[in-house]
């Protein structure tokens, strides 16, 4: 007879996490490049929503991998390769930090994670634009407005999305839990 207990896991890449990270990379890519919603004065893509979903549901490791690689592939495949190194670091950090704060958390911690992730996104791209690409003050400021819209949309829409998926598909709550089995003493 064996007795099992579930511990909080997700910091090592098991086969299940490799598959999950891979699929979430594809989800983030599609959400970034192919699902765009027109808003007054431009459009927002759903990439940040997908990154927050990965971080809040599967933790910082999957969040960081999907966050770093999904949007980077989107940049590389759409002609914006010049943004790829910045995107890799900024969105990776966004996914990591959002996962550290909001993984399996309630509404308020997810909101806090969305806020901190937004600061990383907006600040990170401003620094990359201004100091690395040196695109000039005007373009860097214009980019801030676009990223503010992205960050706000990501944080606002991802929370109800996470809550809805948790409700309709409860097994995902246990996917990043590591099972440790102990034999019962005879």
């Amino acid at each position: 007879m064996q007795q099992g207990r579930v511990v909080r896991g997700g910091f090592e890449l098991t086969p299940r996490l490799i598959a999950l990270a891979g699929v979430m990379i594809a989800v983030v890519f599609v959400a970034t490049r192919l699902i765009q919603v027109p808003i007054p004065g431009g459009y927002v893509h759903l990439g940040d929503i997908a990154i927050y979903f990965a971080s809040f549901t599967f933790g910082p490791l999957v969040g960081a991998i999907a966050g770093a690689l999904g949007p980077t592939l989107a940049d590389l495949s759409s002609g914006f390769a010049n943004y790829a190194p910045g995107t890799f670091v900024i969105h990776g950090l966004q996914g990591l930090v959002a996962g550290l704060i909001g993984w399996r958390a309630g509404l308020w911690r997810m909101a806090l994670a969305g806020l901190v992730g937004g600061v990383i996104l907006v600040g990170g791209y401003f620094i990359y634009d201004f100091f690395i690409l040196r695109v000039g003050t005007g373009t860097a400021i214009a980019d801030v407005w676009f990223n503010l819209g992205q960050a706000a949309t990501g944080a606002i829409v991802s929370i109800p999305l996470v809550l809805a998926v948790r409700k309709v598909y409860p097994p995902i709550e246990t996917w990043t839990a590591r099972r440790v089995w102990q034999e019962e003493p005879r």
Partner: protein
Amino acid sequence: MSAGYDLYAPGDSWLHRLDPRVKLILTAMAALLVLLWSSLPLLLAALALAHLLLALARYPRGLAIGVWRALAPLLILIVTLWPVFDRRGEPVLLALGPLIVTGEALLRGLATALRIAALSFTLLLWLGTTDQRSLVRSLVRLGLPFSLGMALTIGLRFIPTFAGVYQTVSEAFQARGLTLPPRGLRRLQAMLPILVAALVTALRMSEQLGWTLAARGVGAPVRRTTLRDLAMRPADWLALAAGLAAGLALLWLTLAEGLGRALR
């Protein structure tokens, strides 16, 4: 990734045949140089060289034009906004209240836009001539952990699959009466059920994939072998040596002698 989602164009040119690790190292070196330069003629030369190499590799003109189209809004934004925020230099071309536009600022804006374009096309030399399998394999050989390389491969493979799932779910919802408002937060709100259904489908796929990977020994503590490995040919070593020598010489000239730092 299928056609339409990436910039790779199959071919048999010398650039296609070059080892992907060599291409990555030389592209990174060239990108660093382009990032350091501000000189209009030098950036123009780098952009022309990238186009020449793409043409020699028989890279499809349509894909290159697609990259220009994607970059165009950003380049126009840079050229338009740069002179508004930069009032340095002469001659003054326009003085309208607080708005002062100088010729030098216009040229600086143009040089910045050229730097962004040159950087994109330099990286296109690597992306446009390296297929995804070689790209991931080269990253793993350069130190990326195998598990991350595997996740990246799965991601690339699943992009068309998830795009198809999303499309199917969206059409199914709309066939059953879901109306998507044309824009704004209402559209996002209406898209939530589509996203939930598409995500759950994708997650079920990942669950099965995880079992398959575990059944095939992924994650087992053994030394992995590969069926087809990358091997450096003499031509690859030669290209690496020549490219690195030229790149390092240009880097030394840039950092020590100020090559490409001045606008003209």
